[in-house]
Protein backbone atom coordinates (compact mmCIF):
# COMPACT_ATOMS: atom_id res chain seq x y z
CA UNK A 1 0.00 0.00 0.00
CA UNK A 2 1.23 3.50 -0.72
CA UNK A 3 2.34 5.77 2.05
CA UNK A 4 4.28 8.87 2.93
CA UNK A 5 7.28 9.65 5.05
CA UNK A 6 7.70 13.22 6.26
CA UNK A 7 11.30 14.13 7.10
CA UNK A 8 11.42 16.91 9.67
CA UNK A 9 14.55 18.89 10.53
CA UNK A 10 14.33 20.90 13.74
CA UNK A 11 16.55 23.03 15.92
CA UNK A 12 17.04 20.11 18.29
CA UNK A 13 16.98 16.96 16.19
CA UNK A 14 15.27 15.14 13.33
CA UNK A 15 11.93 13.39 13.28
CA UNK A 16 10.25 11.08 10.79
CA UNK A 17 6.47 11.06 10.51
CA UNK A 18 4.97 8.11 8.67
CA UNK A 19 1.50 7.24 7.47
CA UNK A 20 -0.26 5.11 4.90
CA UNK A 21 -1.87 6.64 1.85
CA UNK A 22 -4.90 7.82 3.80
CA UNK A 23 -2.62 10.13 5.83
CA UNK A 24 -4.87 10.01 8.89
CA UNK A 25 -2.92 7.95 11.41
CA UNK A 26 0.69 8.94 11.92
CA UNK A 27 3.67 7.31 13.54
CA UNK A 28 6.33 9.62 14.93
CA UNK A 29 9.91 8.40 15.24
CA UNK A 30 12.82 10.32 16.66
CA UNK A 31 14.38 12.44 17.83
CA UNK A 32 17.40 11.46 15.80
CA UNK A 33 20.63 13.38 16.51
CA UNK A 34 18.94 14.93 19.52
CA UNK A 35 20.20 18.31 20.59
CA UNK A 36 21.70 19.12 17.16
CA UNK A 37 20.38 21.50 14.55
CA UNK A 38 19.12 19.51 11.60
CA UNK A 39 18.88 21.97 8.77
CA UNK A 40 17.68 19.49 6.18
CA UNK A 41 16.99 15.86 5.35
CA UNK A 42 16.18 14.56 1.91
CA UNK A 43 15.74 11.14 0.36
CA UNK A 44 17.01 9.92 -2.98
CA UNK A 45 14.26 9.76 -5.61
CA UNK A 46 16.00 6.67 -7.02
CA UNK A 47 16.28 4.82 -3.71
CA UNK A 48 13.89 6.19 -1.07
CA UNK A 49 15.69 4.26 1.66
CA UNK A 50 18.75 6.44 1.06
CA UNK A 51 18.34 9.64 3.08
CA UNK A 52 20.90 12.37 3.69
CA UNK A 53 20.77 14.59 6.78
CA UNK A 54 22.65 17.76 7.65
CA UNK A 55 23.52 17.80 11.35
CA UNK A 56 25.31 20.82 12.75
CA UNK A 57 26.03 22.77 15.89
CA UNK A 58 27.80 25.92 16.88
CA UNK A 59 30.09 23.86 19.09
CA UNK A 60 31.09 20.94 16.89
CA UNK A 61 30.50 22.15 13.34
CA UNK A 62 29.07 20.09 10.49
CA UNK A 63 28.23 16.40 10.47
CA UNK A 64 26.73 14.51 7.54
CA UNK A 65 24.48 11.59 8.32
CA UNK A 66 23.15 8.99 5.93
CA UNK A 67 20.52 6.30 6.26
CA UNK A 68 20.28 3.33 3.93
CA UNK A 69 17.12 1.90 5.49
CA UNK A 70 14.60 4.70 5.32
CA UNK A 71 15.70 6.44 8.49
CA UNK A 72 15.72 3.49 10.89
CA UNK A 73 19.49 3.62 11.35
CA UNK A 74 22.08 6.25 10.50
CA UNK A 75 25.82 6.45 9.90
CA UNK A 76 28.44 9.03 9.17
CA UNK A 77 29.50 8.10 5.62
CA UNK A 78 33.05 6.79 5.59
CA UNK A 79 33.36 6.62 9.37
CA UNK A 80 30.59 4.50 10.85
CA UNK A 81 30.85 3.59 14.52
CA UNK A 82 32.76 0.36 15.11
CA UNK A 83 34.44 0.20 11.71
CA UNK A 84 38.04 1.00 10.88
CA UNK A 85 38.48 3.28 7.91
CA UNK A 86 39.80 1.55 4.81
CA UNK A 87 42.44 4.22 4.28
CA UNK A 88 44.23 6.92 6.25
CA UNK A 89 43.51 9.71 6.26
CA UNK A 90 39.96 8.49 5.77
CA UNK A 91 37.43 10.21 3.60
CA UNK A 92 35.73 12.91 5.58
CA UNK A 93 32.02 13.34 5.11
CA UNK A 94 32.04 16.63 7.01
CA UNK A 95 34.97 18.20 5.18
CA UNK A 96 33.77 21.05 2.98
CA UNK A 97 36.82 22.86 1.73
CA UNK A 98 36.43 25.67 -0.75
CA UNK A 99 38.26 25.23 -4.00
CA UNK A 100 41.39 27.38 -4.06
CA UNK A 101 43.14 25.47 -6.81
CA UNK A 102 45.23 27.20 -9.40
CA UNK A 103 43.20 25.44 -12.04
CA UNK A 104 39.95 27.10 -11.13
CA UNK A 105 41.58 30.17 -9.62
CA UNK A 106 38.32 31.97 -9.83
CA UNK A 107 37.22 30.57 -6.50
CA UNK A 108 39.68 32.81 -4.70
CA UNK A 109 37.03 35.47 -4.45
CA UNK A 110 35.68 37.35 -1.49
CA UNK A 111 32.13 38.47 -0.81
CA UNK A 112 30.66 41.61 0.61
CA UNK A 113 30.60 41.85 4.40
CA UNK A 114 28.08 43.73 6.54
CA UNK A 115 30.30 46.81 6.71
CA UNK A 116 30.82 46.94 2.96
CA UNK A 117 34.32 45.49 3.07
CA UNK A 118 35.31 42.28 1.34
CA UNK A 119 35.35 39.11 3.44
CA UNK A 120 36.72 35.64 2.66
CA UNK A 121 34.41 32.65 2.36
CA UNK A 122 34.13 30.63 5.60
CA UNK A 123 32.24 27.36 5.76
CA UNK A 124 29.46 27.32 8.36
CA UNK A 125 27.00 24.52 7.58
CA UNK A 126 24.98 22.63 4.99
CA UNK A 127 21.58 24.18 4.44
CA UNK A 128 20.22 21.84 1.81
CA UNK A 129 20.92 18.43 0.30
CA UNK A 130 19.63 17.65 -3.17
CA UNK A 131 20.10 14.02 -4.17
CA UNK A 132 20.62 13.26 -7.84
CA UNK A 133 17.59 12.21 -9.85
CA UNK A 134 19.45 9.20 -11.25
CA UNK A 135 22.12 8.01 -8.79
CA UNK A 136 21.60 7.54 -5.04
CA UNK A 137 25.33 8.03 -4.38
CA UNK A 138 25.37 11.43 -6.00
CA UNK A 139 24.14 14.35 -3.95
CA UNK A 140 24.56 18.11 -4.02
CA UNK A 141 24.96 20.28 -0.93
CA UNK A 142 24.10 23.95 -0.68
CA UNK A 143 26.18 25.51 2.06
CA UNK A 144 26.83 28.67 4.04
CA UNK A 145 28.94 30.67 3.11
CA UNK A 146 27.21 30.24 -0.20
CA UNK A 147 28.69 27.57 -2.42
CA UNK A 148 27.67 24.34 -4.09
CA UNK A 149 29.35 21.03 -3.27
CA UNK A 150 28.91 17.57 -4.78
CA UNK A 151 29.52 14.04 -3.57
CA UNK A 152 29.54 11.02 -5.85
CA UNK A 153 30.31 8.46 -3.15
CA UNK A 154 27.25 8.59 -0.96
CA UNK A 155 28.40 11.59 1.05
CA UNK A 156 31.81 10.19 2.02
CA UNK A 157 33.68 13.07 0.38
CA UNK A 158 32.81 16.39 -1.16
CA UNK A 159 34.23 18.75 -3.74
CA UNK A 160 33.18 22.24 -4.56
CA UNK A 161 31.60 23.04 -7.91
CA UNK A 162 33.53 26.25 -7.99
CA UNK A 163 32.24 27.57 -11.27
CA UNK A 164 29.37 29.09 -9.31
CA UNK A 165 31.46 31.17 -6.91
CA UNK A 166 33.98 31.88 -9.57
CA UNK A 167 31.70 33.15 -12.31
CA UNK A 168 32.38 36.77 -11.39
CA UNK A 169 29.64 38.31 -9.28
CA UNK A 170 30.81 36.80 -5.96
CA UNK A 171 32.26 40.04 -4.61
CA UNK A 172 28.74 41.50 -4.71
CA UNK A 173 27.04 38.71 -2.77
CA UNK A 174 26.27 39.50 0.84
CA UNK A 175 24.89 37.69 3.87
CA UNK A 176 21.24 38.05 4.77
CA UNK A 177 19.99 37.87 8.35
CA UNK A 178 20.33 34.09 8.29
CA UNK A 179 23.83 34.15 6.85
CA UNK A 180 24.99 33.91 3.26
CA UNK A 181 23.43 30.59 2.40
CA UNK A 182 22.82 28.55 -0.71
CA UNK A 183 19.43 27.12 0.23
CA UNK A 184 17.68 26.03 -2.95
CA UNK A 185 18.84 23.48 -5.51
CA UNK A 186 16.53 22.42 -8.34
CA UNK A 187 17.52 19.84 -10.95
CA UNK A 188 15.72 19.87 -14.29
CA UNK A 189 14.13 16.40 -14.52
CA UNK A 190 14.34 16.50 -18.32
CA UNK A 191 18.00 17.54 -18.42
CA UNK A 192 20.25 17.00 -15.41
CA UNK A 193 22.84 19.32 -16.93
CA UNK A 194 20.50 22.18 -16.14
CA UNK A 195 20.17 23.21 -12.52
CA UNK A 196 18.96 26.22 -10.60
CA UNK A 197 20.22 27.42 -7.26
CA UNK A 198 19.31 30.35 -5.04
CA UNK A 199 21.32 32.29 -2.49
CA UNK A 200 20.43 34.80 0.19
CA UNK A 201 21.40 37.48 -0.57
CA UNK A 202 22.70 37.08 -4.07
CA UNK A 203 19.77 35.79 -6.10
CA UNK A 204 19.05 32.89 -8.44
CA UNK A 205 21.54 31.27 -10.81
CA UNK A 206 21.33 28.67 -13.58
CA UNK A 207 23.76 26.26 -15.14
CA UNK A 208 23.16 24.57 -18.48
CA UNK A 209 26.35 22.54 -18.56
CA UNK A 210 26.32 20.43 -15.42
CA UNK A 211 27.62 23.11 -13.04
CA UNK A 212 30.71 24.12 -15.03
CA UNK A 213 29.42 27.61 -15.72
CA UNK A 214 26.64 29.65 -14.17
CA UNK A 215 24.72 32.80 -14.93
CA UNK A 216 22.66 35.05 -12.68
CA UNK A 217 18.95 34.89 -13.55
CA UNK A 218 17.51 37.84 -11.69
CA UNK A 219 16.11 40.08 -14.40
CA UNK A 220 12.80 41.48 -13.24
CA UNK A 221 13.55 41.21 -9.53
CA UNK A 222 13.36 44.50 -7.66
CA UNK A 223 14.90 44.87 -4.20
CA UNK A 224 14.62 48.40 -2.84
CA UNK A 225 17.29 47.79 -0.19
CA UNK A 226 19.96 47.46 -2.90
CA UNK A 227 21.94 50.41 -4.25
CA UNK A 228 20.67 49.36 -7.65
CA UNK A 229 17.26 47.78 -6.91
CA UNK A 230 17.34 45.90 -10.22
CA UNK A 231 20.96 44.80 -9.95
CA UNK A 232 22.24 41.63 -11.53
CA UNK A 233 22.85 40.11 -8.07
CA UNK A 234 22.24 40.98 -4.43
CA UNK A 235 18.59 39.94 -4.22
CA UNK A 236 17.37 38.08 -1.17
CA UNK A 237 15.67 35.12 -2.79
CA UNK A 238 14.00 32.99 -0.14
CA UNK A 239 12.93 29.95 -2.14
CA UNK A 240 12.26 28.74 -5.67
CA UNK A 241 9.99 25.90 -6.81
CA UNK A 242 9.20 24.16 -10.08
CA UNK A 243 6.84 21.47 -11.33
CA UNK A 244 8.63 18.41 -12.62
CA UNK A 245 6.70 18.38 -15.90
CA UNK A 246 7.39 22.01 -16.68
CA UNK A 247 10.91 22.81 -15.59
CA UNK A 248 11.13 26.10 -17.47
CA UNK A 249 8.43 27.60 -15.27
CA UNK A 250 9.74 28.75 -11.92
CA UNK A 251 8.01 30.25 -8.92
CA UNK A 252 9.91 32.35 -6.39
CA UNK A 253 9.22 33.67 -2.93
CA UNK A 254 11.56 36.61 -2.67
CA UNK A 255 12.18 38.54 0.57
CA UNK A 256 9.23 40.62 -0.54
CA UNK A 257 7.35 39.69 -3.74
CA UNK A 258 6.13 36.40 -5.17
CA UNK A 259 7.60 36.04 -8.64
CA UNK A 260 7.19 33.85 -11.69
CA UNK A 261 9.38 33.03 -14.67
CA UNK A 262 8.15 31.28 -17.81
CA UNK A 263 11.55 31.10 -19.49
CA UNK A 264 13.90 29.24 -17.14
CA UNK A 265 14.65 32.36 -15.15
CA UNK A 266 15.62 34.62 -18.05
CA UNK A 267 13.05 37.09 -16.74
CA UNK A 268 10.63 37.29 -13.84
CA UNK A 269 7.35 39.04 -13.22
CA UNK A 270 5.48 39.59 -10.00
CA UNK A 271 2.42 37.44 -9.20
CA UNK A 272 1.75 38.59 -5.63
CA UNK A 273 -1.75 39.70 -6.65
CA UNK A 274 -4.20 39.80 -3.75
CA UNK A 275 -1.96 38.29 -1.07
CA UNK A 276 -2.34 40.04 2.30
CA UNK A 277 1.47 40.43 2.38
CA UNK A 278 3.97 39.15 -0.11
CA UNK A 279 6.76 38.66 2.40
CA UNK A 280 7.36 35.01 3.20
CA UNK A 281 9.74 32.12 2.91
CA UNK A 282 8.11 29.01 1.44
CA UNK A 283 6.66 28.38 -1.99
CA UNK A 284 5.68 25.08 -3.56
CA UNK A 285 3.80 23.59 -6.49
CA UNK A 286 0.97 21.03 -6.49
CA UNK A 287 2.27 17.61 -7.57
CA UNK A 288 -0.23 17.20 -10.42
CA UNK A 289 -1.35 20.73 -11.28
CA UNK A 290 1.56 22.86 -12.51
CA UNK A 291 -0.45 26.07 -12.18
CA UNK A 292 -1.48 25.43 -8.57
CA UNK A 293 1.00 26.98 -6.17
CA UNK A 294 1.19 27.60 -2.44
CA UNK A 295 2.74 30.29 -0.27
CA UNK A 296 2.47 31.16 3.40
CA UNK A 297 2.55 34.91 3.87
CA UNK A 298 4.49 36.30 6.83
CA UNK A 299 3.64 39.74 8.17
CA UNK A 300 6.88 41.52 7.33
CA UNK A 301 10.64 41.31 7.39
CA UNK A 302 10.53 43.03 10.77
CA UNK A 303 7.80 40.81 12.22
CA UNK A 304 8.46 37.21 11.34
CA UNK A 305 5.05 35.76 12.15
CA UNK A 306 1.80 35.25 10.31
CA UNK A 307 -0.46 38.30 9.92
CA UNK A 308 -3.45 38.94 12.21
CA UNK A 309 -2.62 35.98 14.43
CA UNK A 310 -4.04 33.66 11.75
CA UNK A 311 -2.15 30.78 10.19
CA UNK A 312 -3.19 30.68 6.55
CA UNK A 313 -1.74 29.01 3.51
CA UNK A 314 -2.57 30.79 0.27
CA UNK A 315 -3.24 28.83 -2.91
CA UNK A 316 -3.36 30.07 -6.46
CA UNK A 317 -4.84 27.84 -9.14
CA UNK A 318 -3.81 30.30 -11.81
CA UNK A 319 -0.05 30.27 -11.34
CA UNK A 320 -0.19 33.41 -9.23
CA UNK A 321 -2.01 36.74 -8.92
CA UNK A 322 -5.31 35.22 -7.77
CA UNK A 323 -4.94 33.74 -4.31
CA UNK A 324 -7.37 32.09 -1.90
CA UNK A 325 -6.79 31.68 1.83
CA UNK A 326 -6.75 28.11 3.14
CA UNK A 327 -7.50 28.07 6.83
CA UNK A 328 -9.72 25.10 7.64
CA UNK A 329 -8.08 23.24 10.49
CA UNK A 330 -5.42 25.89 11.05
CA UNK A 331 -5.42 28.21 14.10
CA UNK A 332 -7.21 31.47 13.32
CA UNK A 333 -6.48 33.40 16.48
CA UNK A 334 -3.48 34.12 18.68
CA UNK A 335 -1.07 32.37 16.35
CA UNK A 336 2.36 33.96 15.88
CA UNK A 337 4.55 31.36 14.26
CA UNK A 338 6.94 31.59 11.34
CA UNK A 339 7.47 29.05 8.57
CA UNK A 340 11.00 28.89 7.18
CA UNK A 341 12.04 28.56 3.54
CA UNK A 342 12.57 24.81 3.36
CA UNK A 343 9.66 23.93 5.63
CA UNK A 344 6.97 23.15 3.05
CA UNK A 345 6.69 20.12 0.79
CA UNK A 346 4.16 18.17 -1.24
CA UNK A 347 3.61 14.46 -1.75
CA UNK A 348 2.63 12.93 -5.08
CA UNK A 349 -0.28 10.73 -4.10
CA UNK A 350 -3.34 11.02 -6.34
CA UNK A 351 -4.89 13.49 -3.93
CA UNK A 352 -1.89 15.76 -3.45
CA UNK A 353 -0.77 16.23 0.15
CA UNK A 354 0.75 19.49 1.40
CA UNK A 355 2.90 19.75 4.52
CA UNK A 356 4.55 22.53 6.44
CA UNK A 357 6.30 22.98 9.77
CA UNK A 358 6.38 26.02 12.04
CA UNK A 359 8.72 27.78 14.42
CA UNK A 360 6.32 26.61 17.15
CA UNK A 361 7.04 22.96 16.44
CA UNK A 362 3.81 22.08 14.70
CA UNK A 363 3.76 20.05 11.49
CA UNK A 364 0.51 20.45 9.57
CA UNK A 365 -0.69 18.21 6.77
CA UNK A 366 -3.43 18.48 4.20
CA UNK A 367 -4.47 15.39 2.27
CA UNK A 368 -6.82 17.32 0.00
CA UNK A 369 -4.49 19.79 -1.70
CA UNK A 370 -4.90 22.38 1.02
CA UNK A 371 -8.67 22.47 1.46
CA UNK A 372 -8.36 21.25 5.04
CA UNK A 373 -5.51 20.74 7.47
CA UNK A 374 -4.66 18.76 10.57
CA UNK A 375 -1.61 18.82 12.82
CA UNK A 376 0.47 15.67 12.70
CA UNK A 377 2.45 16.83 15.73
CA UNK A 378 2.15 19.99 17.79
CA UNK A 379 5.13 20.16 20.07
CA UNK A 380 8.37 19.47 18.28
CA UNK A 381 11.33 21.84 18.52
CA UNK A 382 11.22 24.72 16.06
CA UNK A 383 10.97 23.27 12.55
CA UNK A 384 13.74 24.15 10.10
CA UNK A 385 12.80 21.96 7.15
CA UNK A 386 10.23 19.54 5.79
CA UNK A 387 10.61 17.02 2.99
CA UNK A 388 8.14 14.34 1.96
CA UNK A 389 8.76 10.96 0.42
CA UNK A 390 5.90 9.27 -1.40
CA UNK A 391 6.34 5.54 -1.01
CA UNK A 392 5.00 2.89 -3.37
Amino acid at each position, binding site marked *: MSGVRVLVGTKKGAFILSADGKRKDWTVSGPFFSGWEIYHLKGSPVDPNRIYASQSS*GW*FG*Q*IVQRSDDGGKTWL*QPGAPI*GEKPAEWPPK*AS*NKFLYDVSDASGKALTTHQWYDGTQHPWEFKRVWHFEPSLSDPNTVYAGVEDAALFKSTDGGESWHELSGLRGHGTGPNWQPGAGGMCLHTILIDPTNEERMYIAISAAGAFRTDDGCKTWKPINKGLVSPFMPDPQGEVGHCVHHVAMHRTRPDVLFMQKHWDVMRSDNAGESWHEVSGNLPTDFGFVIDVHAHEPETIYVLPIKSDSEHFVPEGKLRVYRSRTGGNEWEALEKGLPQKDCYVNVLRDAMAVDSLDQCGIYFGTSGGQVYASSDAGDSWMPIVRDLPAVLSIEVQTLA
Partner: protein
Amino acid sequence: MSAEGKQQSKLIRAVLPFHLRTLAGVGSEVELEVEAPITIGRILDALEARYPMLRGTIREYETGRRRAFLRFFACGEDWSNEALDCELPEAVAQGVEPLLVIGAIAGG
Protein backbone atom coordinates in the same frame (compact mmCIF):
# COMPACT_ATOMS: atom_id res chain seq x y z
CA MET B 1 54.84 3.31 14.99
CA SER B 2 58.46 2.21 15.55
CA ALA B 3 59.45 -0.20 18.29
CA GLU B 4 61.14 2.69 20.06
CA GLY B 5 58.00 4.79 19.74
CA LYS B 6 55.86 2.02 21.12
CA GLN B 7 58.03 1.92 24.22
CA GLN B 8 57.38 5.61 24.74
CA SER B 9 53.64 5.52 24.24
CA LYS B 10 51.41 6.17 27.23
CA LEU B 11 47.86 5.35 28.08
CA ILE B 12 46.11 8.69 28.30
CA ARG B 13 42.61 9.48 29.53
CA ALA B 14 40.33 11.95 27.78
CA VAL B 15 36.84 13.09 28.71
CA LEU B 16 34.53 14.13 25.89
CA PRO B 17 31.37 16.27 25.92
CA PHE B 18 28.03 14.52 25.57
CA HIS B 19 27.49 15.05 21.85
CA LEU B 20 30.93 13.80 20.87
CA ARG B 21 30.45 10.69 23.00
CA THR B 22 27.25 10.02 21.09
CA LEU B 23 28.95 10.51 17.74
CA ALA B 24 31.79 8.17 18.64
CA GLY B 25 29.59 5.67 20.48
CA VAL B 26 31.71 5.81 23.65
CA GLY B 27 31.25 6.47 27.34
CA SER B 28 32.26 9.61 29.14
CA GLU B 29 35.94 8.74 29.21
CA VAL B 30 38.17 7.16 26.58
CA GLU B 31 41.66 5.72 26.93
CA LEU B 32 44.14 6.43 24.18
CA GLU B 33 47.63 5.22 23.48
CA VAL B 34 49.67 8.33 22.80
CA GLU B 35 53.34 8.65 22.02
CA ALA B 36 55.37 10.90 24.35
CA PRO B 37 55.80 13.80 24.74
CA ILE B 38 52.13 14.13 25.67
CA THR B 39 50.55 17.20 24.11
CA ILE B 40 46.99 18.19 23.30
CA GLY B 41 47.83 17.89 19.59
CA ARG B 42 49.03 14.30 20.01
CA ILE B 43 46.03 13.35 22.11
CA LEU B 44 43.71 14.79 19.47
CA ASP B 45 45.64 12.95 16.74
CA ALA B 46 45.18 9.69 18.62
CA LEU B 47 41.54 10.44 19.36
CA GLU B 48 40.75 11.14 15.71
CA ALA B 49 42.69 8.09 14.55
CA ARG B 50 40.66 5.84 16.78
CA TYR B 51 37.36 7.66 16.27
CA PRO B 52 37.53 9.16 12.78
CA MET B 53 33.94 10.36 13.01
CA LEU B 54 35.25 13.03 15.38
CA ARG B 55 37.51 14.60 12.78
CA GLY B 56 36.56 18.21 12.25
CA THR B 57 34.44 18.41 15.40
CA ILE B 58 37.16 19.59 17.82
CA ARG B 59 39.64 21.14 15.41
CA GLU B 60 38.64 22.90 12.23
CA TYR B 61 39.75 21.11 9.10
CA GLU B 62 40.99 24.14 7.30
CA THR B 63 43.03 25.78 10.03
CA GLY B 64 43.57 23.02 12.61
CA ARG B 65 42.39 25.49 15.25
CA ARG B 66 40.30 24.57 18.26
CA ARG B 67 36.65 25.29 17.65
CA ALA B 68 35.65 28.49 19.37
CA PHE B 69 33.08 26.96 21.74
CA LEU B 70 35.30 24.12 22.95
CA ARG B 71 37.87 24.35 25.74
CA PHE B 72 40.66 22.08 26.98
CA PHE B 73 41.22 21.62 30.71
CA ALA B 74 43.73 19.47 32.60
CA CYS B 75 44.72 19.33 36.26
CA GLY B 76 42.41 22.23 37.07
CA GLU B 77 43.95 24.54 34.50
CA ASP B 78 42.70 25.95 31.22
CA TRP B 79 44.96 24.83 28.38
CA SER B 80 42.68 26.09 25.61
CA ASN B 81 44.94 28.86 24.43
CA GLU B 82 48.21 27.00 24.73
CA ALA B 83 49.96 25.76 21.62
CA LEU B 84 48.86 22.28 20.60
CA ASP B 85 52.45 21.06 20.92
CA CYS B 86 52.80 22.31 24.50
CA GLU B 87 53.49 19.43 26.90
CA LEU B 88 50.73 18.63 29.36
CA PRO B 89 51.36 18.03 33.09
CA GLU B 90 52.93 14.76 34.17
CA ALA B 91 49.69 13.66 35.83
CA VAL B 92 48.04 13.61 32.40
CA ALA B 93 51.04 11.89 30.83
CA GLN B 94 50.85 9.19 33.51
CA GLY B 95 47.12 8.68 33.07
CA VAL B 96 46.33 9.92 36.55
CA GLU B 97 44.38 12.94 35.34
CA PRO B 98 42.33 13.16 32.13
CA LEU B 99 42.33 15.81 29.44
CA LEU B 100 38.89 17.38 29.55
CA VAL B 101 37.30 18.54 26.29
CA ILE B 102 34.47 20.81 27.37
CA GLY B 103 31.70 22.52 25.45
CA ALA B 104 31.13 26.17 26.35
CA ILE B 105 27.99 26.92 28.32
CA ALA B 106 26.21 28.91 25.64
CA GLY B 107 23.27 28.82 23.29
CA GLY B 108 19.63 27.89 23.73
